[in-house]
């Protein structure tokens, strides 16, 4: 009877471990009323939240008012972006709900729907929405810009360039220039791209956020073309603007990791590990320095990825591939993730993860789509070129 008892205990314990899902500890009753359970990222005094509250109040007085609803949705999307929090996207969608499923929604509702879908990586649906908007409003600058951005991420550079062009007359000059320079940077015209971005960054009267993005773009471009000193300078300039930006923070941490400056990454990120992107890079930096904290943080990331898989969406494929490759050291699984990710988006990091996983797993043929992409578009990226060279050496 002992054998069976033990066997059943093991089965029960394993089942509990697997089945308990994303929850880890037992639920509890806090001992003290003053105990802080959760910190909201924006408190009620934050200007963005104040504006959102005012618009909400306006909308509840007049729920049919599309003007107010669309303004509120725009605010939610903005906050969502700067906080890196997809909840706000869902809230934007909820605000637009009365128009979302309508037979013929107002063009602006379709445009906002496209932007929300773009952020959920539903690129096909987003492009269809944008074409619908542009059919009714061929001069809608925002629609052209969003379209260019999606096509760029998908690696359709010629079409993306075509979508940037109308911006020359429909929007301010530096918008069109930034749109084009992004594509130029990936299609063998890095020098031209740098020139354009420098021009945007140096213009007086360019809003801070736009300057920030020009500088971030310059920093990434410099890092890709092996000019790390210039990259460091642009990152510093961008950070000095003082706008909270999750993308910049992640890009800077990646740059430091590549430079072997993992210590600085720990200092940069350890204060706020709530964002997944920060936790991922912190764990990578800790692993690089053989710090014991790497293990705990890897466990936390594994739990977050499994929670995100449980809901059935896959917007974290790039991060998950990197996590699986470097922190879990499971190159075959990483390769599968990197390939699935490459089917959706084709930016330099996506390429790099696919090449690195292909190398690590020894499945050199899997790298072919990325090698084709590199050569067709004459991508200038020292890191990717080096990986490609190692791959071709492996072949011979």
């Amino acid at each position, binding site marked *: 009877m002992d054998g069976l008892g033990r066997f059943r205990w093991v089965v029960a314990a394993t089942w509990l471990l697997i089945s308990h899902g994303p929850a880890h500890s037992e639920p509890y009753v806090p001992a003290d*009323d003053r*105990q802080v*359970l959760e910190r*909201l990222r924006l408190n009620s005094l934050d200007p963005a939240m104040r504006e959102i509250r005012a618009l909400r109040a306006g909308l509840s007085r007049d729920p049919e008012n599309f003007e107010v609803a669309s303004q509120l949705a725009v605010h939610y*999307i903005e906050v969502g972006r700067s906080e890196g929090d*997809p909840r706000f996207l869902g809230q934007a969608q*909820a605000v637009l709900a009365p128009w979302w499923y309508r037979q013929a929604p107002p063009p602006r509702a379709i445009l906002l729907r496209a932007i929300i879908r773009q952020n959920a990586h539903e690129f096909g649906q987003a492009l269809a929405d944008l074409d619908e908007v542009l059919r009714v409003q061929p001069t809608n600058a925002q629609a052209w810009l969003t379209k260019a951005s999606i096509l760029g991420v998908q690696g359709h550079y010629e079409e993306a360039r075509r979508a940037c062009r109308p911006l020359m007359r429909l929007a301010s000059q530096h918008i069109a220039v930034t749109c084009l320079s992004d594509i130029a940077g990936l299609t063998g015209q890095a020098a031209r791209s740098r020139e354009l971005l420098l021009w945007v960054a140096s213009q007086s009267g360019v809003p801070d956020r736009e300057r920030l993005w020009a500088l971030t773009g310059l920093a990434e471009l410099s890092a890709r073309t092996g000019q790390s000193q210039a990259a460091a300078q642009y990152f510093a300039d961008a950070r000095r603007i003082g706008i909270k930006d999750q993308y910049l923070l992640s890009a800077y941490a990646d740059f430091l990791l590549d430079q072997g400056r993992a210590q600085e990454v720990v200092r940069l990120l350890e204060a706020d590990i709530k964002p997944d992107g920060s936790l991922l890079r912190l764990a990578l930096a800790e692993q690089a320095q053989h710090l014991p904290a790497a293990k705990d943080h890897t466990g936390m990331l594994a739990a977050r990825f499994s*929670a995100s898989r449980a809901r*059935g969406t896959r*917007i974290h494929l790039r991060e998950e591939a990197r996590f699986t490759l470097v922190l879990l050291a499971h190159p075959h699984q990483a390769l599968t993730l990197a390939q699935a990710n490459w089917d959706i988006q084709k930016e330099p990091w996506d390429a790099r993860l696919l090449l690195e996983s292909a190398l690590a797993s020894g499945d050199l043929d899997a790298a072919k789509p990325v090698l084709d992409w590199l050569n067709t578009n004459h991508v200038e990226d020292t890191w990717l070129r080096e990986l490609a060279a190692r791959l071709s050496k492996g072949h011979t």
Partner: protein
Amino acid sequence: MKRLALVFLFLLLHTSVWAHKPSDSYLSLTIDGQEIDGRWDIALRDVEDAIGLDADGDGAITWGEVRAKHQEIAAYAFSRLTLVSDRTVCVSRTLEQLIENHTDGAYSVLRFHADCARPIERLQADYRLLFDVDAQHKGLLRLTQGTHTMTAIFSQESPIQQFTIDDVSLWWQVRQYVHEGMWHIWLGFDHVLFLLALLLPAVLTRTAGRWNAIVDFSAAFWEVLSIVTAFTLAHSITLSLATLGMVTLPSRLVESAIAASVIVAGLSNLYPKLVGRRWVVAFFFGLIHGFGFAAVLADLGLPREALVLSLVSFNVGVEIGQLAIVAAFLPLAYFLRHTWTYQHVVVVTGSLAIAGIALLWLIERAFNLNLFPA
């Protein structure tokens, strides 16, 4: 349109980095007859967005602030979840509210109980939490009945999910109990040894105080069949009687008697005159082994509605496990029956060893000792 363009401009030039998990709630329902035990984990951030928790607006949600809103939280949550069993709405009652830390922050845990008036056959769950606030919110459901678990995801596009409890669970129960029965016969070494002890001489005949190999396979086959059938018949009778509550015996007595039966079976091979026909031994002690099976079955927790079904399934599992042992044993023994090793070493030493182990079991069980390392 131009103003809008400026608001969005740079949002679009890179893939945005989503730093957090989107909003999810975790609903787990355990069905037992007409009752449902529920646990619902809802993120405090979502509760804040839906009904407001941060009373002093300092951006920090304290336990005091959550506690003050307990009634409101429960009222909000249960106004968004309807459980219907065969067209009857189940009545939910909140038991307690706790806090749990998930990977993405603190969650309010609602433990509740729902009564559906009649045993649940079809359950429909209608989930509308938060969809009006966050259209990308999802509800992750885990539905458990007995040993079977189903999962589903509620979203704005699919807020209603239906589950047929009976069909699925019956099939699962059958599988589960068959499986348990098989494992029990394999892992409960006492049954295996008892059976083996009886089967060892099945390929031999006793003439003039000596073992001789049997001539044809059919004789061995019929001998084995009679033993296995007698054992099966006997333990099925007592297993049923005990499970249906008609006869009960103290487990220490049953376990000790099972050990004793193994000793007798082992010794009967060394002193064949001691016993007459082995199928009689198998039948007599099979009655006792049946009580042992019943104890395991009781441990598994029997569903009230499907008592007979699980009893039969468990028994079928035991028989399958038993046949597997016979199928492995018989050809091998038949093949080796002429050898000196089989006739002397395997039968004699094996029976002795079986009797010896069983003796230790008997002492252990009768006197409640622990002779074997766990």
